[in-house]
């Protein structure tokens, strides 16, 4: 189930723009070869290292990407340029320049990024840029709530400093946490998930049904009656969660085995990237303990910078809580002995936003390491891009994009290692989806919309206890309440149930 409607605004301003510059080899190349795409990612802005570093992931056949490599070499503009790895469809390059050398570089390389940092501030988070069909799409997050007019004048300054051609602003918006870090809420137990996947795969939820209960029973080796009961229970859980998301209880954890949606071959081969959602169990981890103690309080963690030279890392915490609880959270941060600074960025009656800078501990980090998740970037490597971490009660949800296709077992192996380094106890990969497109956005989830009429009938049915066990009402009772036929009620409810079940599965399970 996707996150709660509404979303929480973080004090971040999201800026997205497109630029096309013919003098830049990657623009020329991706325009000439539609099947080559690139992702440019800044890995070090050089504040402490004195070196500006980035990776370029070229997605396309080797015979084409090797040409790009030669062209970049021919430019002779990079102090560092090396191939980190190569597979038949992905070439990962690392490039770097001394900061004092950077201003001489043109294109989407160092100079534009330097200018972004100069104009928008050194705290600006530069997101991966995609280069496709000759157009570079850039996105960055400014850790301030900026007025659109001010952002536009800053972008004008940027444009005149860089002199890109075909510069186009796509979006200037306040950052909504739920838009980028939808909470994947697992509603079903492992056996229920297996059963509902089977039922959907066999077409039990098609209109008209493509299989019978008998077909499902034969596949699972049970008689019809228990299968029917189990499916009803699943439908009830999903409907109840849809109507009243706050009443959802966490189901039992799945043993470490792939979910049906994550088994080998389930990630579409056409998708060059993979989006992963993970639930982490970290007993004692201060922010999640605090969230759990405070009755479902929610918090968002946005990683900022890791500075290995000074041994510190920073992060932005947004706590969705009334002032008293927010103050307790602030006290908790300030009492932490590793914390070097806590800056209140903004607060109102429902939110508190703080920027925390803390010393990084020796590994394993331990539950009092408040900036642990900032180190996920460096631990996972340049091919992974992490989205904000969400704390909901004791549950910690991570989402990240890997710039290639991966299997569930590969992700699990990496997370095992990272978990051992950082100190969390356990984790569960809850979703793995292949996709194409903008890695900073992730795959689009195509949800089927429940129509207003279906919604109305569903909510009335829910209120009358149709989704209780045993049912408190019949279709006829609902029909009488709404003044329409029982047949029409049945049709509306069936259609709504099918959409809700499919949406649940399509959102990653």
């Amino acid at each position: 189930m996707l996150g709660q409607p509404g979303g929480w605004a973080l004090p971040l301003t999201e800026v997205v723009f497109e630029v096309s510059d013919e003098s830049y080899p990657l623009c020329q190349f991706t325009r000439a070869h539609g099947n080559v795409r690139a992702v440019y990612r800044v890995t070090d802005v050089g504040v402490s290292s004195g070196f500006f570093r980035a990776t370029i992931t070229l997605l396309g056949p080797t015979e084409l990407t090797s040409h790009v490599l030669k062209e970049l070499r021919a430019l002779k503009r990079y102090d560092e340029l090396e191939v980190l790895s190569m597979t038949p469809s992905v070439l990962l390059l690392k490039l770097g320049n001394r900061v004092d050398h950077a201003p001489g570089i043109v294109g989407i390389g160092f100079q534009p990024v330097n200018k972004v940092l100069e104009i928008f501030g050194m705290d600006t988070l530069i997101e991966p840029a995609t280069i496709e069909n000759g157009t570079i799409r850039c996105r960055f997050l400014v850790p301030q709530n900026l007025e659109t007019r001010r952002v536009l004048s800053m972008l004008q300054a940027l444009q005149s400093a860089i002199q890109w051609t075909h510069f186009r602003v796509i979006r200037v918006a306040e950052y909504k946490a739920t838009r980028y870090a939808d909470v994947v809420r697992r509603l079903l137990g492992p056996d229920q998930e297996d059963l509902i996947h089977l039922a959907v795969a066999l077409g039990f939820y098609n209109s008209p049904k493509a299989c019978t209960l008998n077909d499902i029973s034969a596949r699972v080796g049970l008689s019809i009656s228990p299968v029917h009961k189990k499916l009803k229970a699943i439908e009830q859980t999903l409907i109840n969660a849809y109507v009243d998301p706050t009443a959802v209880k966490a189901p039992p954890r799945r043993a470490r085995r792939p979910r049906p949606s994550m088994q080998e071959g389930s990630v579409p081969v056409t998708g060059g990237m993979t989006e992963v959602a993970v639930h982490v169990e970290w007993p004692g981890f201060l922010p999640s303990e605090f969230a759990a103690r405070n009755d479902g309080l929610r918090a968002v963690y946005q990683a900022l910078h890791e500075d290995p030279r000074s041994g510190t890392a920073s992060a932005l915490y947004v706590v969705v809580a009334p002032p008293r609880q927010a103050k307790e959270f602030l006290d908790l941060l300030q009492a932490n002995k590793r914390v070097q600074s806590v800056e209140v960025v903004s607060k109102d009656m429902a939110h508190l936003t703080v920027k925390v800078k803390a010393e990084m501990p020796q590994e394993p980090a331990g539950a009092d390491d408040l900036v642990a998740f900032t180190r996920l970037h460096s631990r996972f490597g340049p091919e992974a891009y992490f989205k904000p971490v969400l704390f909901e009660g004791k549950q910690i949800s991570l989402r990240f994009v890997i710039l290639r296709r991966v299997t569930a077992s590969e992700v699990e192996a990496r997370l095992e290692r990272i978990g051992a380094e950082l100190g969390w106890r356990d984790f569960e990969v809850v979703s793995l989806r292949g996709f194409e497109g903008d890695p900073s956005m992730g795959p689009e989830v195509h949800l089927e919309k429940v129509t207003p009429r279906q919604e109305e009938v569903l909510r009335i049915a829910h209120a009358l206890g149709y989704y209780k066990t045993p049912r408190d009402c019949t279709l006829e009772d609902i029909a009488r309440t709404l003044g329409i036929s029982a047949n029409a009620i049945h049709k509306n409810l069936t259609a709504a149930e099918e959409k809700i079940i499919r949406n649940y599965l399509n959102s990653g399970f």
Partner: protein
Amino acid sequence: MLLPRPEAPQAHSGSAAQPAQQEGRSAGAKYRILLVDDEPLVLDALLQALGRAKELPCELATALSGEEALRKAASFDPHVVLADFRMPGMTGIDLLARVQTHHPRAVRALITGYNDLDIAIEAMEKAKIHYYLQKPWNNEDLRNTIAEAARTSGGPERGA
């Protein structure tokens, strides 16, 4: 656990727990992976890393030079050849170029400790390599890359 030193070309089962040594294709439906490096210690490390690839049923063979690798490949018919770049005599690129000619279905991977762009470009052009890895390697990445390479090679039951 240290596996036997590969002074002579040998085939090793891909199970780290019980590294039963098997020659040629006796292991049946397993991917055949030929590892080539002039440093026995590096070969040991590669064997150890790949021997733990639980998800990859494989038979591992080793060679200490390009010439030896070509002789071995004639009978071993590898699905994947992983070669070091710098070796006395034949370089890894030369070896993989010849593998391309004589065993075109074998997936070719180069591993090198020299972060030299020219090496990567030459390997792509001359040997049409499929995979490029850096030393020092991360065992997990190595296993994943070789597993992916093996899977793209046509399946373990592929005939000669």
